[in-house]
């Protein structure tokens, strides 16, 4: 374990140097397993947020109410503690620059993690495909990677970022302030005629409602790839 970064009050990134790491593709995940002294085990999947070009891998964990694994990873884990993981895993929810675009990324909360890997990879590979990110967070303070997203948005080839803050907004906020819906996507998403590739990630109800909305906007179902985290996060 190389570094622990507290991204927001509830979210922490864990950066790891994994011996013999085979490399990964943006969008893949790892399965993390924790074992207590009496043999009790718990396992969770976490998307790899770091880009393939980075030799170290990082995963981003959100503290969930009553989450036994996230409570340990966000609150208890220290540098030097043993860490058991399996991966990289996944071939369906991945994006590589050679796959083209334009890219539409829609994230709910910690669902930003695999999409961040894609955006970092897009930047590092110099890909010129257009990219738009619609990112739903509870509040300004809860936006994970907020500063880095501003940097990725800068410049002619930057990603266009649309934040929506669902619970509270800072004073003077002029951006979206509600859950992602069809109207918001019709204003922010690429038109279906540009044959975009869409990746949607977050809690299950969020993903299903966004995926349905995109299909209603004319996106073929096969062009909308989803990764559901279950009821709360992952």
């Amino acid at each position, binding site marked *: 374990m190389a570094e622990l970064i507290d991204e927001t009050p509830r979210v922490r990134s864990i950066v790891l140097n994994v011996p013999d790491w085979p490399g990964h593709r943006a969008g893949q*995940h790892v*399965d993390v397993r924790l074992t207590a002294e009496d043999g009790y085990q718990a396992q969770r*999947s976490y998307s790899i947020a770091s880009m393939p070009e980075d030799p170290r891998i990082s995963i981003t964990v959100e503290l969930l109410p009553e989450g036994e694994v996230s409570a340990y990873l966000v609150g208890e884990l220290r540098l030097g503690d043993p860490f058991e993981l*399996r*991966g990289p*895993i*996944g*071939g*369906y*929810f991945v994006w590589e620059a050679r796959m083209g675009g334009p890219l539409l990324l829609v994230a709910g909360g910690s669902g930003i993690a695999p999409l961040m890997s894609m955006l970092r990879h897009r930047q590092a590979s110099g890909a010129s495909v257009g990219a738009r990110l619609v990112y739903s967070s509870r509040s300004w303070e809860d936006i994970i990677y907020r500063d880095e997203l501003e940097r990725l948005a800068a410049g002619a080839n930057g990603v266009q970022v649309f934040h929506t803050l669902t619970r509270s907004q800072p004073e003077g906020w002029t951006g979206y302030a509600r859950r992602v819906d069809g109207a918001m996507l019709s204003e922010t998403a690429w038109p279906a005629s540009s044959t975009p590739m869409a990746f949607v990630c977050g809690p*299950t*109800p969020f993903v*299903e409602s966004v995926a349905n909305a995109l299909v209603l906007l004319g996106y073929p179902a096969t062009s909308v*790839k*989803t*990764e*559901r*985290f*279950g*009821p709360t996060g992952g």
Partner: protein
Amino acid sequence: MEGSETRTDGNAIAGVLQEVFVREVTTCRIACASCGTVEPIGAEHAYTQTPGIVLRCRHCEDVLLVVTQPPGRTLLAFPRSRWMEIAAEP
């Protein structure tokens, strides 16, 4: 079709399936025997909050694949799949 909060998708069972098939299979297609649709495993509905894993057709919710892991073995059942295609890896 009405959603279900605890539902995830085939991506969540990639690790378990990789143990069995030795390679990544979430891009492999599976055909539903009930409604005929063909989708990659990663896109289908997965229920992992169970005594085992149940993969259901995302169109008609019929059961495509059940994975249980009694000690020392993995049991795979394909109740309502017509076929599963393992394409050569690129």
